[in-house]
């Protein structure tokens, strides 16, 4: 009895993902090329092509470990964490966690954080280019508008922290011929990743800037919660964030939404609440 199409597709999907399904052998025509060898063509193609896609998304990880090691790591990951949709630039969200637990890579304790940086750069690169606030835009916001104004980080922006100097490791990996060594104990990294005009990049933040900055893309900075605009602009801890090109247009909020998200005089908002707030 031949397999019904849903069962055949489920079995072939399992087989391609690396889990042998013996019942398929009876469904596939074999001749001088046995059915198992024919099935292997698809398994190899899927895992190889997903490895290629992951290499494109995690180029720094690949540069650090070499192509052969990366291929093996990516193949293992792909077999257990296949994409859920066809846009491959959106595939690999779980890769950094996987790298962190990948035993053969345990000698490179910073590798998972580099994977997080590659992923953040990828997300930023594929985010919309909404108009960014320039210096004049930031200066033009009136004090009386503050209680209902928001300044959002650019779409796709993210803050990354690492106990390792990943910005220096990343820079070293961009130059394969470089013989520079990086002291892993030379300091923690706090990076703001965001899309630029033609690519994605990052800037280093101070501890104060990083602690203020929302940790996830699309979070917003509420001016009204911070206080007077004059103070807001001069606060050193956010100087690294409110640079021209880093933020998107401030927008008027309804009073109700503003109170819900930013608090009121009786129940003041605290910056920590930004962690769960979505952008406008």
């Amino acid at each position: 009895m031949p397999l019904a199409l849903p069962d055949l597709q489920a079995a072939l999907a399992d087989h391609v993902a690396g889990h042998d399904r013996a019942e398929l052998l009876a469904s596939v025509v074999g001749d001088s090329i046995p059915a198992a060898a024919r099935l292997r063509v698809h398994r190899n193609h899927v895992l190889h092509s997903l490895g290629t896609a992951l290499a494109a998304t995690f180029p720094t990880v690949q540069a650090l470990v070499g192509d052969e090691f990366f291929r093996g790591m990516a193949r293992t990951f792909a077999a257990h964490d296949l994409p859920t949709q066809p846009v491959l630039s959106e595939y690999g969200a779980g890769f950094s966690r996987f790298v962190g637990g990948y035993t053969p890579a345990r000698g490179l304790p910073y590798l998972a954080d580099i994977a997080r940086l590659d992923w953040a750069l990828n997300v930023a690169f594929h985010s919309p280019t909404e108009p960014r606030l320039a210096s004049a835009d930031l200066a033009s916001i009136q004090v009386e508008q503050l209680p209902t104004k928001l300044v959002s980080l650019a779409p796709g922006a993210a803050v990354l922290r690492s106990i390792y100097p990943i910005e220096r490791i990343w820079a070293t990996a961009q130059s394969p011929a470089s013989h520079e060594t990086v002291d892993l104990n030379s300091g923690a990294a706090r990076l703001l990743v965001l899309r630029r005009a033609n690519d994605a990049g990052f800037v280093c933040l101070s501890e104060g800037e990083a602690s203020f900055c929302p940790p996830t893309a699309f979070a917003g900075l509420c001016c009204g919660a911070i206080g007077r605009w004059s103070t807001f602009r001069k606060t050193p801890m956010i100087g690294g964030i409110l640079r021209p090109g880093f933020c998107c247009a401030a927008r008027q909020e309804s009073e109700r939404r503003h109170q819900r998200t930013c608090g009121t005089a009786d129940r003041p908002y605290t910056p920590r609440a930004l962690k769960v707030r979505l952008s406008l």
Partner: protein
Amino acid sequence: MSPIAGIGLRAPHLAEIARERPATAFLEIHAENYLSPTQAAETIERLRADYVFSMHAVGLSLGSAAGIDDAHLDRVAGLVKRLQPAYVSDHLSWSVAGGRYFNDLLPLPYTEEALDVVVRNVQRLQDRLGRQVSIENPSCYLGFTHSTMSEPEFLSEVARRSGCGLLLDVNNIHVTAHNLRLDARDWLTLSPDAVTQYHLAGHAANDADGEPILIDDHGSRVGDAVWTLFEEVVRRFGARPTLIEWDTDIPALSVLLDEAQRADRALSAAGDHAARAA
């Protein structure tokens, strides 16, 4: 005859094409590469002023028994709306099952059950886009014991029942015929009215348990045997928009344009032959 052969627009050539604006009948893009609002997507939209576009999807999974993914269909439909491509196509294959996406064009058994599934999905796609789409014959590395139709018979029925066009990938015909021990001329029995486009690409030969198996890798110039088959195809079905595909080991843009010119010469010669025969 005006050129009707186009080339695949791939990332390494994007800046050069945007700068030099080389002459080609059309540019083909993979839909799934332009669904995010990247600079490349913005460049494509600017190129619309100078080029005809063909949008070739690789992930709609028209053969999935579970149907087409709504979210992906919406994204593709949005891109079609923005780009207004002259041609839209995907494959006679499937790539999604159980919420997992396989970056491959997986084969279907050619049965009545599969035919119903494909026709239903193609109709849904065409209804969503409000236009005809073309379905491409896949490169096959295996066949199923319970298939009751040949691939050309299956394709004919998909076109007849859904009203879709057929995109004949001549390299895929060659690869499938070789790998499944079939006669490539079987595909010449299709109705000319259904054939809307042609694809041409290179392939590689691998080893499968000691036997050669052809792999549709789009990584080299079109092979001589495929050019010969292409001439037969054009004589049978007539001139159609023809794409040069190249997706791995991508060469200089001039190589793709050279292949497109060769395709145009073949299309023109076949047209002359048909005119003489008439």
